């Protein structure tokens, strides 16, 4: 923008070459705290942190298995620590929130057209939820048997 010219009248407000300076509101770093929808968005994005937490825990588990039975027993004990349980309960909430928001948003990105018309979103999200349940059942069975 061109530098402000000298105003002939004493004015509290600055002028550019063509017009009085516009008001440009700054966006505060707390923008996401002010509004429900923005807050939900950031919560959704922060779920990724708990995804990373899970991966770290899984790496610990794999390492424990790699080392031997005592290490595995120690890992299971670590998981029983009340703070770990609290962390994992919180993580599970965030991860389920991730799953639900992910499946609900995926149809927008991948519209499916059949016979020239777009399928309703539920027909894409629905199978994803079903797959989630089936996969969970299979993993549960594999681990528990």
């Amino acid at each position: 923008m061109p530098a402000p010219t000298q105003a002939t009248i004493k004015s509290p407000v600055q002028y550019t070459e063509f017009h009085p300076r516009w008001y440009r509101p700054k966006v505060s770093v707390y923008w996401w705290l002010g509004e429900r929808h923005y807050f939900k968005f950031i919560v959704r994005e922060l779920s990724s942190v708990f995804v990373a937490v899970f991966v770290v825990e899984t790496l610990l588990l794999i390492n424990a298995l790699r080392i031997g039975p005592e290490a595995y027993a120690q890992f299971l004990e670590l998981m029983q620590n009340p703070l770990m349980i609290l962390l994992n309960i919180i993580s599970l909430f965030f991860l389920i929130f991730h799953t639900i928001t992910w499946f609900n948003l995926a149809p927008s990105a991948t519209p499916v057209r059949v016979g020239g018309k777009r399928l309703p979103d539920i027909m894409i999200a629905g199978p994803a939820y079903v797959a989630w349940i089936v996969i969970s059942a299979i993993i549960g069975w594999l681990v528990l048997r």
Partner: protein
Amino acid sequence: MAKTAKHETNEAFFWILFSAGGMMAALFIPIQLFLFGIAFPLGWLHAPTYDSLMSLVRMPITRIYLFVLCSLPLFHWAHRFRYTLYDGLKVKHLNEVIFVFCYGGATVGTLVAAYFLWTIR
């Protein structure tokens, strides 16, 4: 034009990883987190014995599955967290540092997972 092309190459690549990681995380993580993080520690279900779990983990297909489970969701985290820092904390001016921290971290995790899973006997 070359710089734009490089930008678009990088971003498309990281976005695929983010998407794939997000889908992996959505489908596969909740149950495993529930079992190992809540059900087993609280005694709701019996944790598998070392031997039974190892026999499962030793199988090549399980190792591949676990590798993908540890790697892709980390890249999902990396991409999402990077943008959350840009937008949530308005620190986009630190973007080189953030880039290295996020994708570098995900790469380290991937390499660690590969090493662990390769060296299981």
